[in-house]
């Protein structure tokens, strides 16, 4: 395993160097993507080997200073996330071969190729880290390299703004991780995760609760949980599309990885309110996240908000698992955690497909605003079809994979109520499940809106009318991941079987999981689902209806006609736009958006105006009530502190002397 990992490191490092060295040739971006493809294929073998063959292990590679060793470890949990990384990474590397061309032409391909490989390397390191020092090092590297990747188009103002916000927020999160790790080191006297896992559960309850909160904020910032999500809908859309896909599908999952690793491994016994808190935060993220997403007109912004939603769902699953753990219901605790991890995998897969689809649209039309698109299903039929499948999975409809994990989430949440030991838990589960349902309906609405306005109807602009189908490599990348959407939808047992091993390695006994039929036995209320049945029935009935009608009444005779428009000639501008599609939603959920409505009439008479300008501005709650005041406060504080920096050498000397005296006094006291 050690040589394997070293080979992996080398591939990514060499890939990034090759991209830099070959900057004058046409091959620089191809080198980057081919090396990342090789690396992720190798990572897939490594993770499957560890998951199925149990060939994990640990080793140390580099001793920086005595007592400060970079230590690595591959166990089931990290290899499961490595599986996500490698599947999505392989698809994106294939996709990048086509998508990177545009950046190569702009002269940005060299650096991006290098950063692309290093980004993989840093995420690999996060997963392999076996002690706090290595983990934080990798975590910081991941944040910084992703920041550089987000800033690829730094010559545009919004990109720079988003990038700075991202780097500020991610450092805020890391600060909390530092605090948590420092506390753990101070209490346990060791950096290694192995020792923490052994000694962590012996810690005092109050301290563990503080650690829980610190870790939640730290990982929650990276995972884009409400209200720490504000960087996410800004950074994702401005990054190159395959980078957004990687950020959303894989990097956010690192937060889930951290939570599972520390909440289940290190913190040991659980207080009941932890699970409830996670349920609320997850539910709020899911519902509000997708609500803000649905009204967005840019494809990638919608997808980014939906990532915030899906992280919320994963956190709900983790919360449910913790709650069952306090109740002593181990079967459902493992089931809920399985649902969370399965949803993590599924989200990575379908969000990868959708971001790639958005990227292809962006490539073909140079806009991702659905208002300026339309009719792409005729121009880009393959991309449209794959995007539609991704959308169906995102909206969690059977028979694709999104439904399977969401069904498991529903069952875990409802079981909280059905087997509730206390009054407050009885309501909590059903409320959470209803939030899940509403988030699902909103997500479906978002997909309908974007697919309907961007891919269907008639092109509304010149760019959309001239769009051409994406190159083969980009379609292949999408199709590769789409296969898994179908595979895990029809045979969720493959995924849950693997996840079962992960969960057992954290110390759970899991219920039996069969490849065709998802079953959790041994409870008074057995829950069943037969995923293969749905496509069978649907195809049977479609075929049956078609054949019967044809046999009895003859083939359908179809003639073409003009779209009905009350008799007036048809023009493309009559198609419904994304803005108008979100209008009812904006008005119905008015309290969430702080709507500002302005209507300006031009002309002499109010009842016979020459022109009307109508404008609605929507603001999100968090920014107005949380971040704006906070920002103002920080700016105020900074201005006050700046006073001591007066540019006078003597006063600086005075500061030093005063500090020195204070320090001496303090030392004397001790």
């Amino acid at each position, binding site marked *: 395993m050690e040589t394997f990992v070293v080979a992996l490191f080398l591939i990514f490092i060499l890939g990034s160097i090759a991209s830099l060295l070959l900057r004058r040739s046409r091959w620089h971006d191809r080198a980057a993507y081919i090396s990342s493809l090789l690396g992720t294929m190798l990572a897939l073998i490594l993770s499957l080997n560890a998951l199925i063959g149990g060939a994990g292990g640990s080793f140390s590679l580099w001793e920086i200073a005595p007592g400060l060793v970079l230590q690595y470890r591959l166990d089931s949990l990290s290899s499961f996330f490595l599986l996500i990384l490698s599947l999505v990474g392989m698809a994106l590397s294939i996709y990048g071969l086509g998508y990177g061309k545009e950046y190569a032409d702009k002269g940005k391909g060299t650096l991006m190729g290098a950063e692309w490989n290093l980004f993989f390397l840093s995420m690999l390191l996060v997963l392999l880290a076996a002690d706090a020092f290595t983990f934080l090092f990798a975590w910081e590297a991941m944040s910084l390299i992703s920041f550089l990747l987000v800033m690829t188009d730094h010559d545009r103002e919004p990109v720079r703004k988003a990038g700075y916000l991202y780097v500020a927020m991610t450092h805020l999160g890391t600060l909390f991780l530092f605090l948590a790790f420092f506390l753990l080191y101070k209490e346990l006297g060791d950096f290694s995760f192995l020792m923490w896992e052994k000694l962590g559960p012996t810690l005092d309850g109050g301290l563990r609760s503080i650690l829980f909160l610190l870790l939640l904020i730290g990982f929650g910032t990276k995972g884009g949980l409400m209200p720490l999500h504000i960087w996410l809908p800004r950074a994702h859309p401005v990054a190159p599309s395959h980078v957004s896909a990687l950020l959303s599908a894989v990097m956010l999952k690192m937060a889930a990885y951290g939570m599972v690793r520390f909440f289940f491994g290190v913190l040991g016994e659980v207080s009941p309110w932890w699970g409830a808190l996670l349920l609320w935060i997850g539910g709020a993220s899911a519902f509000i996240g997708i609500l803000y997403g649905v009204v967005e007109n840019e494809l990638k912004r919608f997808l980014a908000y939906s990532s915030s939603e899906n992280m919320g769902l994963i956190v709900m699953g983790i919360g449910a698992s913790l709650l069952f753990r306090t109740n002593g219901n181990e079967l459902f605790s493992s089931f809920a955690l399985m649902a969370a991890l399965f949803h993590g995998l599924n989200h990575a897969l379908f969000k990868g497909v959708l971001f790639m689809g958005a990227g292809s649209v962006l490539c073909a039309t140079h806009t991702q605003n659905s208002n300026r698109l339309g009719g792409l299903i005729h121009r880009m039929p393959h991309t449209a079809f794959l995007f539609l499948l991704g959308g169906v999975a995102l909206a969690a409809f059977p028979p694709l994979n999104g439904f399977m994990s969401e069904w498991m989430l529903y069952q875990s949440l409802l079981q909280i*109520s059905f087997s509730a030991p206390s009054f407050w838990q009885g309501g909590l589960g059903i409320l959470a*499940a209803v939030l899940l349902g509403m988030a699902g309906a909103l997500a479906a609405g978002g997909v309908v809106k974007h697919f309907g306005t961007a891919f*269907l*109807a008639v092109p509304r602009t010149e760019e959309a009318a001239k769009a051409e189908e994406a190159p083969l490599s980009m379609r292949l990348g999408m199709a590769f991941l789409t296969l898994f959407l179908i595979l895990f939808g029809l045979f969720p047992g493959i995924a849950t079987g693997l996840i079962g091993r992960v969960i057992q390695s954290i110390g759970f006994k899991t219920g039996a999981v069969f490849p065709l039929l998802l079953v959790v036995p041994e409870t008074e209320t057995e829950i069943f689902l037969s995923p293969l049945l749905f496509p069978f029935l649907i195809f049977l009935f479609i075929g049956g209806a078609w054949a019967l009608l044809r046999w009895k009444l003859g083939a359908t005779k179809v003639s073409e006609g003009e779209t*009905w428009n009350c008799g007036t000639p*048809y023009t493309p501008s009559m198609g*419904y736009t994304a803005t108008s599609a979100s209008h009812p*939603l904006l008005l119905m959920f008015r309290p969430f958006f702080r709507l500002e409505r302005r209507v300006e009439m031009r002309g002499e008479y109010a009842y016979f105006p020459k022109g009307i300008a109508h404008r609605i501005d929507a603001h999100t709650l968090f920014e107005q009530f949380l971040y704006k005041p906070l920002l103002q406060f920080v700016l105020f504080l900074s201005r006050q502190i700046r006073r001591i920096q007066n540019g006078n050498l003597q006063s600086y000397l005075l500061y030093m002397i005063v500090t020195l005296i204070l320090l001496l006094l303090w030392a004397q006291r001790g």
Partner: protein
Amino acid sequence: MEIFWTVLFSGVQLFFILLFSPLVQGVIKKTKAVMQNRVGPPLLQPYYDLMKYLKKDSVVSKQASWLTRFTPYLLFALILSAGLFIPTFLPISPLGGWGDFLVVVYLFGLARFFTALTAYDAGGSFGGMGASREMALSAFGEGAFLFTAFAVLFVVGTTQLNFLAPDLLAHHWGWENPAYWLTFVAMLIVLIAETGRIPVDNPDTHLELTMIHEGMLLEYSGRHLGLVHWAAMMKQFLFLSLFLQFFFPWGVPEKMSVGLLLLSILLFLGKIFLIGFFLGLIETLYAKIRLFKVPRLFLSAMFLAFLAMIIHLAL
């Protein structure tokens, strides 16, 4: 042998749904007509309409893609599949053990998803208008539907619809339970909204100001329209039978015999026509409310379901 019975029972159920769903529609229309002092179309008019539609040619918009031709068949298939998971005249549903209430919700959801999606396909304004309204309302509607249904399923402690009726009866689910009344009213609101009736939606109009569901179907014609209409009627039928299972679970046979089976079929049809009559009554008595007031209706349904759940927990 078990497979044989499952297939047979599934076949009977499908036949039942396909056959009787237009009749329920006819009962509602006739009730409305009589209430409004009209003669109204004959009770069997929905059947004549369907036959006429299915025989006719379709006109498809020049701007439309393959989705327009595919969606009617898909809708029909999705609603039929959902029908196999909902119990009708027997306590169990044909494929009850293989899928649960959530599957039904998501199959209906997928049908709505494709209806709304395809509404954009022809590129007209009416389709998009209907679709955006439908999807915006569905966020509330889904919440209210799940909330009320969970409040009922909470009584039996499972999402399996198999053996729902006997289980509910065994838990003293009936007139004397206050939670029963609260969820009943909540579910009635959901039922009216989901079947697209007044006061939420008007199924008999093509005015752009009022329509939601019809707006999405404007571009369909001929055989496609027939399939879509039939699917909508079946969905209404299934919702009604779910409603019956939730709130009028009595009368389903506990033992199998030909006599009991016939009795239960008659009883079921009686119940469902009564509910249809009741829906027609509501539709005559009320006017359609403004679109942006509908969420309040759903919120009140959710609130009632929430109260019911608290009562469950307190009792």
